[in-house]
């Protein structure tokens, strides 16, 4: 029997039971489309975050306090758990800024406070930093001015607002020169930053920026910094620069560490590339997890296929007997039923891809709108190939047993079957 005959026979049988075939296929459609949607949204989120991070420049280096711990690699974890490590100082940042190959250095402190303007208030993340930060960040004020060296030196009570903070507190009013209160201290608004749009995790439009010294002394009461952001002149110098920074920090912190054992240091250095890789890998795991959950739907669909194939074998016992009587080999019967199962799942796979692509596209539009960010609609060829192979594989796996049963029916038993 030629393959085209097998296909024709399968189509005829499937068309003879349209509703049944459709409902059976629906299981596969749902399974495949869930997997596609999960993978697509996962990759979209990954692209978004990676884009945001690399927008800061690929030659950015972060220095955080606290020893390197191979078990914990997340930046955010450090910020929360080891916030009280006080070893990193503004003077460290100044020392690093003098190293060759360093373009800019911006130390950070941050916290969360309520900002009050007249009868309105808003809880915001504040960042105390130096004027260099905006150059690294690539944001510039649309109103007023940015932070200046003088602000930091004289610990001025001035504040630079993220776009959204300004909108929420001042509406259409011009905030420049107005006075805000944070922790009962008056701050003068000097500028508003342009709208950046942000991801789900961090949105610079929701931040306010203060001079580093002001934030340290007046709001936090500390003399250390949380992060030092360093921008290297080029990607090529990053490796040697990291090593030089380690040495100068060890020297300044009186750490004797000639073996270059990172766990002995009281600081750790992460490059932009590492940070991106880390976040990507977290998202990959998340995507994989969500896809696996979706794959369960596929297995359920496969069981539906198996069930319907058993019904089909029983229903067509007589046909199988007849086919055997006129010369069908076991192999012919086996292939016929397998092809039928695979045609069902293959069609289900195609339907699933179309539905999945549609849903992912819509979800992308909605997410893009919610996050106020251009969402990259990702429908990877890999995901499609995997989806189709999985659906065909489902057909083979769940079709083989019913097909085997059909192939081994005794022809006379089958012919007698009523």
């Amino acid at each position: 029997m030629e393959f085209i005959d097998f296909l024709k026979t399968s189509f005829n049988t499937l068309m003879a039971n349209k509703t049944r075939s459709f409902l059976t296929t629906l299981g596969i459609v749902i399974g495949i489309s869930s997997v596609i949607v999960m993978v697509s949204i996962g990759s979209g989120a990954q692209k978004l975050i990676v884009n945001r991070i690399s927008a800061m420049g690929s030659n950015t280096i972060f220095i955080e306090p606290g020893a390197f711990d191979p078990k914990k690699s997340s930046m955010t974890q450090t910020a929360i758990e080891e916030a009280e490590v006080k070893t990193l100082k503004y003077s460290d940042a100044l020392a690093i800024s003098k190293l060759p190959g360093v373009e800019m250095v911006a130390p950070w402190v941050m916290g969360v406070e309520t900002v009050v303007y007249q009868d309105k208030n808003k809880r915001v993340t504040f960042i105390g930093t130096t004027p260099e930060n905006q150059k690294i960040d690539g944001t510039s004020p649309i109103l007023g001015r940015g932070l200046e060296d003088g602000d930091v030196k004289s610990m001025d009570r001035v504040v630079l607002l993220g776009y959204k903070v300004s909108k929420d507190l001042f509406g259409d009013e011009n905030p420049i020169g107005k006075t805000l209160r944070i922790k009962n201290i008056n701050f003068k608004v000097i500028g508003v930053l342009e709208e950046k749009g942000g991801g789900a995790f961090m949105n610079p439009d929701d931040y306010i920026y203060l001079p580093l010294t002001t934030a340290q002394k007046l709001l936090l009461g500390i003399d250390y910094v949380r992060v030092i952001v360093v921008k290297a002149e080029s990607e090529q110098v990053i490796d040697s620069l990291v090593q030089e920074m380690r040495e100068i920090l060890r020297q300044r912190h009186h750490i004797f560490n000639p073996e270059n054992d990172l766990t002995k240091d009281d600081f750790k250095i992460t490059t932009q590339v590492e940070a991106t890789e880390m976040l990507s890998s977290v998202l990959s795991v998340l995507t994989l997890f969500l896809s696996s959950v979706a794959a369960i739907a596929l297995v359920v669909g496969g069981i539906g296929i198996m069930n319907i194939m058993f019904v089909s074998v029983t229903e067509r016992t007589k046909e199988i007997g007849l086919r055997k009587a006129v010369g069908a080999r076991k192999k012919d019967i086996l292939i016929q039923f397998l092809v039928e199962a695979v045609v069902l799942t293959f069609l289900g796979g195609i339907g699933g891809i179309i539905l999945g692509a549609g849903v992912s596209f819509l979800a992308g539009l909605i997410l893009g709108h919610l996050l106020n960010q251009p969402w990259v609609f990702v429908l990877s060829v890999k995901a499609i190939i995997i989806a189709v192979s999985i659906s065909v594989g489902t057909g083979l796996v769940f079709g083989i047993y019913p097909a085997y049963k059909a192939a081994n029916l005794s022809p006379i038993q089958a012919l007698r079957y009523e």
Partner: protein
Amino acid sequence: MNSNFIIEAQNLKKIYGQGEAKTFALNGVSFKVKQGEFLSIMGPSGCGKSTLMHIIGFLDYPTSGTYKFEGKSPNELTDSEISEIRNKKIGFIFQFFNLLPRTTVLENVKLPLVYTKLSNKEKQKRALQALEAVGMSHRLKFYPNQLSGGEQQRVAIARAIVNQPKVILADEPTGNLDSKSGQKVMEILQKLNEQGQTIILVTHEKYTSEMAERIIYLKDGRIIGEERVHQRKFAKDGLVK
């Protein structure tokens, strides 16, 4: 191998069940069939006719004894060799037609050809020839449920002869038909036999059995008699029932 005999059966036994429940569907059946012969196997229901027919048609195996078709015995063959014999050497006609529903007359006739390596053109040609031979060429696109019983059986005959088999096995081919349709079916079988086709017919009707050249009488799994038909009936002469 004696080329005169296409079928040689020696002491065939078919036993179902074991111990107390042991029953002999066939209990020592021996006979031979010549190329081109028209043989009837006659007997009451439960005499083992159908079992014998299944063994002749390679659908079943004897428990003991030897069965040879063109010198080949089913226990010496692989599954696909057996399938090939069913496909190319034997044409089955059943009492209840066994046409595939939702499949046109033409496609039904082509069914055995599906398992051959013939070209599509050749398949089409053979199917049309077979339908021509049974006078059903005007019903190519019909479905079985649109045909009368007699017409369905004629399509089934076309399917049986489409692969130009050595032997046609007809199991009560008129058993489910009115006498007129039955007569037409027998007329076709006799015509095929005239053209040299070997036919083995199973029936319980004396009149139908006398349309063959030779009759084997079967009862309780044994051959109880055998005769050459002296006054052979011909279906084309009309009804003498």
